[in-house]
């Protein structure tokens, strides 16, 4: 798809480009590159006119420094008539995994020939009845291992063997508990989140088949009524989780002090910044290593900065004890974002109004 329109604004070494897509963006992720200077983006798009979903792989180029408007060039597209809308998308070097609202988990494998030629190979998908009932709410991918959770209260691990995907049920709450977020910490550990701002830590070695640790924060009523939408795990300190959810809540959970949330943002919590950056749903959170690489002194602080996006259209970086730094303020919701793990200065966001926003920080 060609770049139809662009908008650039200069803001303290921050460049923002908006690329209208003419289709609803269900999900967007960076694809880890195969060579040093490649930038690839995976998009899941929904076309309301034809009611069809596609997964598209694009390369992102900034032609020259004088003209910094990025160009998205399509490399490969995957679609199938039976494809349902994407509920969550995750990528690793060798795998693009996306879950759907109809309860299936599909996989694509990127096949790299050159920076201009990357194809998408379809791998067998999981859509058995016993896998999940109803929509899969969240997945995470670590190399070629996948974990999925759903509102049905099931936690499944998916692996590849003999060229086909197979799953193992870790837990089934039988609908008594619903999960809405999941994130790998290590090949044996992952964290889940759900209703009531709850978090669970799973350790497959020490305590298989049930949560090894439950987060029990003493929340005020307002926060307790929230849902966790997104979890991230500290890239170097695996015992620190960050969660984002309803009412603008962003909080950290240190496994060593499981009763004390480190609240970065939120409404109705005792100790919090005077002006909450958001009062609505925080759809995604990710630890932000960008400042860290440039500013070594901040390493000493207790927690790394966190980027979040919200239904109110805010993309911001939060840090304990500091004023939030707003990167974007859109008139519509920012449904998801992804920080480029190879180049932390690049961020890509999906906007409610059928647009992508690409941010370059320097």
């Amino acid at each position, binding site marked *: 798809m060609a770049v139809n329109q662009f908008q650039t604004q200069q803001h303290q070494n921050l460049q923002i480009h908006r690329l209208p897509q*003419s289709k609803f963006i269900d999900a967007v992720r960076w694809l880890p590159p195969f060579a040093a200077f490649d930038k690839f983006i995976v998009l899941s798009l929904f076309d309301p006119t034809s009611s069809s979903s596609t997964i598209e792989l694009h390369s992102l180029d900034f032609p020259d420094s004088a003209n910094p408007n990025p160009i998205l060039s399509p490399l490969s597209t995957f679609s199938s008539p039976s494809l349902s809308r994407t509920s969550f998308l995750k990528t690793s070097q060798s795998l693009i995994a996306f879950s759907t*609202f109809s309860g299936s988990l599909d996989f694509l494998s990127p096949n790299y020939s050159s920076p201009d030629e990357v194809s998408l190979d379809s791998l067998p998908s999981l859509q058995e009845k016993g896998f999940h009932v109803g*929509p899969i709410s969240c997945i995470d991918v670590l190399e070629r291992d996948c974990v999925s959770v759903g*509102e049905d*209260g099931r936690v499944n691990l998916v692996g590849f063997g003999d060229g086909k995907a197979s799953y193992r049920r870790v837990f089934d709450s039988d609908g*008594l*508990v619903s999960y809405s977020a999941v994130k790998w910490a290590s090949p044996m550990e992952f964290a889940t989140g759900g209703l009531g701002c*709850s978090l669970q830590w799973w350790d497959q070695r020490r305590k298989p088949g049930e949560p090894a640790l439950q987060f029990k924060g003493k929340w005020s009523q307002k926060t307790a009524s929230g849902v966790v939408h997104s979890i991230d795990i500290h890239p170097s300190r695996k015992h620190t989780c960050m969660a984002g959810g309803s009412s603008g809540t962003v909080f950290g959970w240190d496994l060593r002090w499981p009763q004390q949330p480190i609240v970065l943002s939120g409404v109705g919590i005792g100790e919090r910044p005077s002006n909450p950056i958001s009062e609505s749903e925080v759809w995604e959170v990710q630890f932000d290593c960008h400042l860290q690489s440039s500013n070594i002194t901040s390493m000493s602080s207790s927690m790394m900065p966190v980027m979040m996006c919200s239904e109110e259209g805010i993309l911001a970086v939060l840090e304990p004890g500091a004023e939030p730094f707003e990167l974007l303020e859109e008139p519509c919701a920012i449904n998801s974002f992804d920080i480029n793990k190879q180049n932390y200065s690049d961020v890509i966001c999906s906007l409610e109004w*059928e647009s992508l926003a690409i941010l370059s920080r320097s």
Partner: protein
Amino acid sequence: MPAPAAPNSDDQLSLFSPPPSSPKQPIIYPLHHSLSSPVSRIAISWSRGNTLRLSLLPQPSSNGGIEVNDGDDSSGGSVVEVKLSAGNGGIDDDAQWRRIVYGSVAPFAMFQSRKNSAFSFSKLPVGALSNVDWWEYVMEYSKEINSLLGTTKSMASSIVDDPRRILMVDEEPTSLKAAWELLEIFYADKQSQAWLPERLVDWLADYDSLFSETQFTVYSKLVDLQQRLLNMQTIEDDQKYWDCLSSALALGWLDIVVKLLRLHGSYQLDQLSRRETENGLVEAVVVLVSKMPRLRPELQAGRLGECYKNKTDFIKGWETWRARVTKLECSGYWVQCGHQKTREGLRKILQIMLGNTEHLSATTCHWVELYIAHFIYIRPFTVGFESLYSQAQKCIQLKPVSHPHSLMGLMVGILGENTEVVLAECSRAFGPWMVTHAIELLTAGNDQSEILLHEVRQNLGGVSIEELHRLVYAQVLASNQLTWQIAPVYLTSCRPGMGMLEILLYRQPVHLKQGLLKNLEICRLYELDTVSSNIMKIAGVHHWKHGRKGSGIFWLQQAQDEIRLNKIAQQLFDFVGKSVSEESFKQWEGLIELLGSDTRTAGGLEFLHKYRDFKRSLQQVVDGKATDAARQAVESLILLMKNPSTPQQFWLPLLHDSLKLLTWREGPLLDVAQTNLLLNKLQELSMARMRPDYVEADLPTQALSTVRLALATNLGRAILEEQ
């Protein structure tokens, strides 16, 4: 596909009938279907916004639905969706259309809030505020909306290197943009009201191509000429060349005129010696054209004409220039010009510059062109709105049109200062988006339109025309799954909109988390607590009944729906009462955690949380022998027995489970008061057993007497202890 049975220019269903009170025949639309048998029955259902879903049902055969004729594999009917959205302003690409819709939200909302604050500040109707700031706001709004409608480069301004290319179109201009700019010129741009004629000249230069759809225009003449130019040598022999020159000049397209004149054969090097005078005349005209005075603040760089900012200077300049034109007209050189067509053509050009009515009329194609030509050459000193309308009517009489372009209708409405006609034309040709956003311009500084559009009408059920249009537009937005979330912006900006917003929110599907939360966010923003709790109830019941008990309870808790939660508590107690084993309790752990986290409205479910705590400390007592654990268990037990939400059916099982505590070897764990409380409960229970609706717990028959004995023993020991 057969065409619509009734002639209808824009082939769209307009929800709003524009010319008030004029009786209209209903528009007939065919509903195409592929059924082999005729439709005998239609079932109607309104779907999102103003879409209709129709079930077309053929007559079912009488023999139980099984077709005798096996060859007929027709289906039993079909469901079609009909979008009644009024026209999208001639923009056919849905995605492009949505982009305009998205883009107009922020300017609209910004303008509304500025209007509201201006209103509250001055206590005067907005129209009475005539300060500079206000008009800047209006212009800012207008420009932002305008920028969404595409970019058009002025045709005359496009300086093309190729000398033989006189027209360049980067982007197809749209009628929608042309209409918006027309409104902007007349209603928003108060700063340049003094240069109105020149603004109209520019406007027509940009959009004359649009009129070519329905009639012959100067633009289409030029397009024709462009074709011929490419393979023509002696251009000045062609009458069309001279016609086009006059026509382009009549509309003030000076750059094109000069460019065309320079193509004249006399400029060619080999011709110079033979056609000196001829060339001199052509060049003289070129100079005059290039120096034509224009009453406007500025001219784009590279564009021709002499710019005058105020009327006095302009009148002076104009008279000087006219004198020069007259002088050339009377010049003796004309007889020395050997080329007849050049002579005639150039003199015709001079006539136009002198404002010869006949020539102007002959060289322009439709009335708008003639009207513009009038401004330039006959009444160049027109400022503001003086007699604009009567002039337009004269032009219409001179050049009547059988099928007027929608922009012409709009122009007549504007010039006639008839707000109703302007709205009707906007609505008919460009649909609800245009009307909703254009009303802001119409009412910006015009008291009469404001009264007309803001007056509450009983005939319309107590809404004003402005409100009506916002409702209609919101309904269009609501019919699209990607734009419905924008509807609240327009609905909340008008009084009756809240009622419709409630209906709209109520009809959104809530079974998926993301959609539900986006719905609730809108409720939060506009403080629609009742709707919000209703939506959560719908979600809660849906999850509960579809096997997601946790989500069900969660959303019902959010809705504070005590009635349903209490019913759920009953069901859960029955289940828990049946299976209190540790194993099954593990499964409930997460749910109980959730219940405990919300102290507001767990309803009877609060009990489960306490019960879990009790069972847990009891377990510790069984595992070890810690008296501390035992004391804690007793605390939990007393709390449970005191709590009114503990169901009666649990009293005996609780006490029976606690037998070990009641007969604690190391000494009595319960004091006298506590023991008495439990004894009273036991008494109450024995009374309740007499009633027919009592549910017997699944316990050994002697359970009650065992508990009573244990309590009695404990009481005795406690009394001794206390003394």
